[in-house]
């Protein structure tokens, strides 16, 4: 019997498996599809601190950004690029708001620098009011990241296996039922992303995780890099936090080591509808060309969509579920799942191995932070209270 069953082989499930294994636990990962086959496979690989207001999510992001750097050294093989992010403002009013946000972020430990955009991106449109550069922003290839973490975890990976229910002893969760038989486990981690609400429902627990659709355009590979950092307009920050049901788009543009440029980002609440919305693609193209005029004649060769798992308060769900002891959730990261995965995985491994979930002793990351059952009973440096699963009831 494994110590932990993780439901979901996306990047969050992979990080949970990795840190649980590093804490000395035996892990089995199950997924209805393939490794990185869900939202992870449709992601850009954002590791961002720049787009978050000061608060619990930014604290999580800051912890996670450092962990990604460590993982690149410990595991590697997933195109980690600490290339920095450039947020630009079209108007003086937006620039004022942007620099105001940057000042608040700095007091939360984020490094930010007011810059002239063309000094960082020679090909960017002229006439922008200004920008802020965030050196901690980075990028990973999310599918490879998930696959490498899963591989490094040594976990047993069971893809194409659908979870159909839970085994229980009283309230306590003692394992999962699958279409290939029961899997008893000491702890079960629900890292099913957009589908995590359905998994929770199998245990009779409400968990309001819903899909928020996004499209990405992919250009032909460019012979030489046109774009050096992750670049986006300040409107992205307000869109991320928006409550609007309708379509929102803001330019998010970046190059990749393989050559193509990735262009996002759109947000729509349309359920799991995969029908391609060409007007949305046209807006993404228009905004990208406005930001980088040299892209105008470059060709788009692909487009795809994915579904961000979001909760009503736009915070992830991380931690034990008091309604069903033995069940832990790690989901609801919306568009930030790649970036927030390592911190989520680390914190889940801590609470599974008996940490109290209260702030206190700092967590060290990296090889020196290797923990084991001997450390059980310690305290987390990050308060999981804002992320608690039962907060919606």
């Amino acid at each position, binding site marked *: 019997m494994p110590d932990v069953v993780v439901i979901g*082989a996306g990047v969050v499930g992979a990080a949970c498996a990795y840190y649980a294994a590093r804490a000395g636990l035996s892990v089995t990962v199950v997924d209805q599809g*393939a*490794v*990185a*086959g869900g939202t992870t*496979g449709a992601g850009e690989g954002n590791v961002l601190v720049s787009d978050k207001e000061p608060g619990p999510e930014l604290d999580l992001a800051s912890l996670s950004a450092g962990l990604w750097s460590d993982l690149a050294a410990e595991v590697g093989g997933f195109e980690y690029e600490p290339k920095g992010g450039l947020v630009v403002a079209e108007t003086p009013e937006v620039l004022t708001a942007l620099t105001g946000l940057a000042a608040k972020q700095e007091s939360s430990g984020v490094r930010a620098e007011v810059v002239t955009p063309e000094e960082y991106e020679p090909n960017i449109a002229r006439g922008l009011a200004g920008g802020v550069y965030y050196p901690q922003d980075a990028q990973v290839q999310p*599918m*490879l990241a998930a*696959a*490498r973490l*899963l*591989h490094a975890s040594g976990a047993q*990976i069971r*893809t*194409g296996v659908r979870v159909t229910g839970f085994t229980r002893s009283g309230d306590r969760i003692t394992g999962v039922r699958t279409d290939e038989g029961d899997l008893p486990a000491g702890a079960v981690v629900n890292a099913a992303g957009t589908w995590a609400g359905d998994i929770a429902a199998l245990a009779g627990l409400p968990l309001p995780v819903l899909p928020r659709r996004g499209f990405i*355009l*992919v*250009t*032909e*590979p460019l012979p030489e890099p046109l774009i050096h950092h992750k670049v986006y307009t300040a409107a992205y920050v307000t869109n991320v936090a928006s409550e609007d049901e309708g379509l929102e788009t803001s330019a998010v543009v970046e190059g990749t080591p*393989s050559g*193509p440029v990735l*262009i996002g980002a759109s947000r729509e609440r349309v359920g799991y509808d995969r*029908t*391609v919305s*060409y*007007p949305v*693609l*046209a*807006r993404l*193209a*228009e905004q*990208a*060309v406005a930001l980088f005029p040299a*892209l*105008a*004649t*470059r*060709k*788009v*060769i*692909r*487009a*795809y969509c994915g579904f961000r798992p979001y909760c009503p308060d736009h915070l992830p769900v991380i931690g034990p579920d008091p309604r069903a002891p033995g069940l832990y959730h790690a989901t609801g990261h919306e568009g930030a799942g790649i970036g927030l995965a390592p911190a989520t995985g680390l914190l889940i491994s801590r609470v599974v191995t008996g940490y109290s979930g209260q702030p206190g002793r700092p967590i060290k990351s990296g090889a020196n932070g290797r923990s084991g059952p001997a450390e059980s009973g310690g305290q987390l440096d990050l308060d999981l209270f804002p992320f608690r699963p039962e907060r919606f009831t």
Partner: protein
Amino acid sequence: MKYDLIVIGAGPAGMAAAGTAARGGLRVALVDSAAQLGGQFHRQPPPELGGGNVRDDPTHERLGRDQSIEQAIQAPAPRRDFLRLRDRLTGVDLHLGCRVWAVEPSFAVHHDGGTLTGERLLIATGAHDRVVPFPGWDLPGVMTAGGAQALLKGNLVVAGRRIAVAGTGPFLLPVAAGLAAAGARVVGVFEAARQMGALARYPAKLAEGAGYAATLARYRVPYHRGQAVVAAHGADELAKVTVAKIDDGWRAIRTREIECDALAVGYGFVPQLDLPVQLGCATTRDSDGSAIVAVDDQMRTSITGVHAAGETTGVGGAELAELDGIIAGHSITGTPLPDGVRRRRERARAFARLLHEVFPVRDGWRDRLRADTIVCRCEEVPYQAICDAQALGAVDTRSLKLLARPGMGWCQGRMCGYAVARLAGEDPPPPRRPIAQPISLQNLAAYPLRSTNDDA
């Protein structure tokens, strides 16, 4: 004003359907990416031989890139069946040289030069070469059989001086015969299949094959069954190939080497389903495992107002495609089908199924891949990278693509899709290509603002 019908694809199926619908009184648009009517089978050279006619299908590029050994020939007279199809198009609006990159559920058809709108659609986008990788297949001088044929028909260019033709299927015969008649020395046709006796049930088809066989005999072209080209060699360009006798599973038994400067290799065809998948048409499997559009006996797809005809509904050749097109045209206009069409179509479809049985593609080609054999040319993905991705947990076509990048490049997996799927142990899934043809960002940005035929 909207068109009553937009036909996408001007091969035998599309031409027949457009002609039938126009004669039934409909206002019809016929769209094709090529500059000339005809599709792959009836491909015509451009009036001034301006070139550029061949490259509308990425798998019709030369697999290598050298052109120095190619020689030009005189244009042959068009076939009579092509002229008959063409002459029926009176009154049809032709939109040639228009690459369709998207079709919306409103039946707005977006191409690189504008947008057309219609009340109904007919998808007749044909098929492209099925490519199977082997060591050396990316050398200059190696091309698909369809590519060699397109060069010959569309550009009046012979692909080389000493040419080997290899693969499987009846299409190898016209390719070899055409190349030989155009002056190339065809050093051999290497057909993987061995047992072809079942084809004798179709005397008319047998006679067609006998015609090609006579041409091959006249030019002393040997035709070998149960053999395959298992490797291509050369420093900078193709110099020789390794030919093997193969067993029923396509494993090599005994090999020899043959000098040649060109290799045309064809393993059948893959239906081109980008647009029907965009529209949400239900798909099914042909008897060879290919994903095809599901149609009823009227050639109606699962989407109201959308018909499909020809190779998109199952690869079966020009005659079957034309009959499909006639049936679809009559279904759309509500006019009665001429006597005999349905019976001829059933017979042609049965023959197509038999061809799938007689000329299967077996997985033994996988044994020939070396660590450095390129599987995806666009992204330069070697076989080793596929194996590495499998070791990391890639269990299907899509996860192989996500972890190792095959199919992410310019041709969007049209070339490597079959091979990658078989390496993943499955039949190729229906292609999801929301952008069916590359389009510049400025054109994509501007498309909602363009005028259409619906504005008037």
